[in-house]
């Protein structure tokens, strides 16, 4: 199962960080919806040319969609992939599912949580509420049922899931890998404890004292590697630093919906470049203006 990672200095580069992700690996992506997604790591994964991934998590958006569009994903096992009512369905994810090139083993939030908890608790399975009567189990031959030894009740049962690698993004962290996150943590804590390898990017690498003052959410001993990547969650948000980039997300969705050359052009422009170039191109800095006033904050969403 999961051993601890005791090195004192875990700093590395994006390239070395994503080298932990082998073709075919089960990868947990931190954050949720369009917040705190590990996008700098995702972009590096695409540059690495990784294939055959099984991605697992709860509710996601551009992280999964970009990986699917770039051909990195074989199996998608999340509770949701999309851009909510604002930008709609996830284009590459949808195309993959509909064409059959992507296997979607849709999961649900509590089910994913329960599978991670089983791994974290060191048990091979856990019972879970709900699921029975829904069609989700038809997508999961690996799920089953269990009879409560005390009440005789039949419950859904799911096996432990220990991701090979978790990719997390945090606003701050130290060289040993202590990370502070703002809430909601979504599944990041569970990923951190259940995964064999945890790779974290941070907007700012800071002194341990600063992480302690903010609160250590993910402790160093579960983190394998840490890399400084300013605006590393962009175009998703990473508060207290920056709001999400609605116009960039719209640009992405348009390119992904068009597919083909348009998507390749997106990759060439934004993914197959270094992160400094990416930040300059996207003007990510402007998203820190959210904190100036409620009016400026709202403006970012119009």
């Amino acid at each position, binding site marked *: 199962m999961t051993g601890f990672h005791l090195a004192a200095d875990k700093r590395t580069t994006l390239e070395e960080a994503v080298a932990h992700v082998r073709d075919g690996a089960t990868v947990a992506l931190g954050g949720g*919806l369009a917040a705190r997604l590990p996008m700098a790591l995702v972009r590096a994964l695409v540059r690495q040319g990784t294939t055959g991934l099984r991605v697992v998590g709860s509710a996601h958006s551009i992280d999964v969609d970009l990986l699917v569009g770039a051909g990195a994903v074989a199996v998608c096992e999340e509770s949701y992939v999309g851009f909510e009512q604002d930008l709609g369905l996830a284009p590459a994810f949808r195309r993959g599912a509909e064409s059959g090139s992507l296997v979607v083993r849709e999961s649900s939030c509590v089910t994913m949580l329960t599978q991670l908890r089983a791994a974290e608790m060191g048990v091979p399975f856990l019972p879970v509420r*709900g699921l029975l*009567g829904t069609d989700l189990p038809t997508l999961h031959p690996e799920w089953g049922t269990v009879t409560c030894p005390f009440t005789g009740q039949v419950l859904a049962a799911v096996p432990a899931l220990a991701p090979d690698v978790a990719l997390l993004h945090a606003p701050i962290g130290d060289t040993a890998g202590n990370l502070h996150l703002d809430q909601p*943590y979504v599944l990041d804590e569970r990923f951190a404890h259940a995964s064999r390898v945890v790779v974290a990017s941070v907007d700012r690498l800071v002194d341990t004292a600063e992480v302690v003052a903010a609160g250590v959410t993910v402790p160093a001993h579960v983190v394998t590697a840490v890399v400084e990547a300013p605006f590393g969650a962009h175009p998703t948000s990473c508060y207290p630093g920056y709001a999400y980039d609605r116009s960039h997300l719209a640009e992405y969705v348009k390119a992904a919906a068009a597919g083909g050359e348009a998507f390749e052009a997106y990759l060439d422009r934004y993914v197959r470049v270094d992160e400094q170039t990416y930040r300059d191109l996207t003007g990510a800095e402007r998203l820190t203006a959210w904190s100036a006033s409620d009016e400026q904050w709202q403006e970012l969403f119009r």
Partner: protein
Amino acid sequence: MSTQSADGAQGWSLDEWFVVALARTVADGEVVFHGFASPCAQVAMHVARRTHAPGSMLVEGATYAVNPEPAFVPPTSNDLALHRDAVYRMRFEEFFDAACRGAVDRMFLSGGQIDAYGNTNVTAIGGMPHPKIKLGGGGGGANISATIGALTVWTTRHGSGRTLVEAVDFLTDLGHRTPAGTRAELGHTGGGPQWLVTELGVLDYTDDGRARLVATFPDVTVADVEKATGFALTVADDVGTVPEPTPAELAAVRAVDPLGVRRLEFGPADLARRFGPAA
């Protein structure tokens, strides 16, 4: 208090009224939750707390913030704007555990397809593993639709004729009865769907768990609803009109949602529906 909307027109729009109708399904003192990608439900919960249900406890979508007072509702459910003034933010697992053990009284649920028993499909039109349209997915619904006290189901696409269906192509979230059995037979502890609010009217559920039309919006007839519904529709003896929003409710909708994210759920024709003095 004026019922004038933000753009200066008199009366109110369908999207405003719809949100008010959703809000009224919240009883005072309830613990209520909406999922992500649910702007109408999200706005409705805040409207309920600011009007008839000040003692309800609101768990804010994907942030799990308790009773926040956001200055505006952004177009994404996981944003710091939605935490404003919340004393507490649940952890992900804390919320879902509470929902699984029955501590949450009401959840809002929608679906690309909804059947007579309130089962919903948010996974795939055409079913899996070969979807015609792959929808986003169900979030936590497949678990907590089984356990939460009561469900308010909603759709803004009833009129399409493709949403309220005889049988869902994929059963993501649980209504009162599935092909595998009733909730009781399946061992599920929650009460299931209590209300179904659509852009055509309001439905409740009969004792045998089927949707029943109880009120329509004034520009909609019972025949319109029947025509748009893919299953044999039960109609209450005394179908009325959805009660009009009060000025306080309309003011709450406009205060909670200055960006109008609720409108993202409606097509152009429904967005043009207006009611009241100047309608």
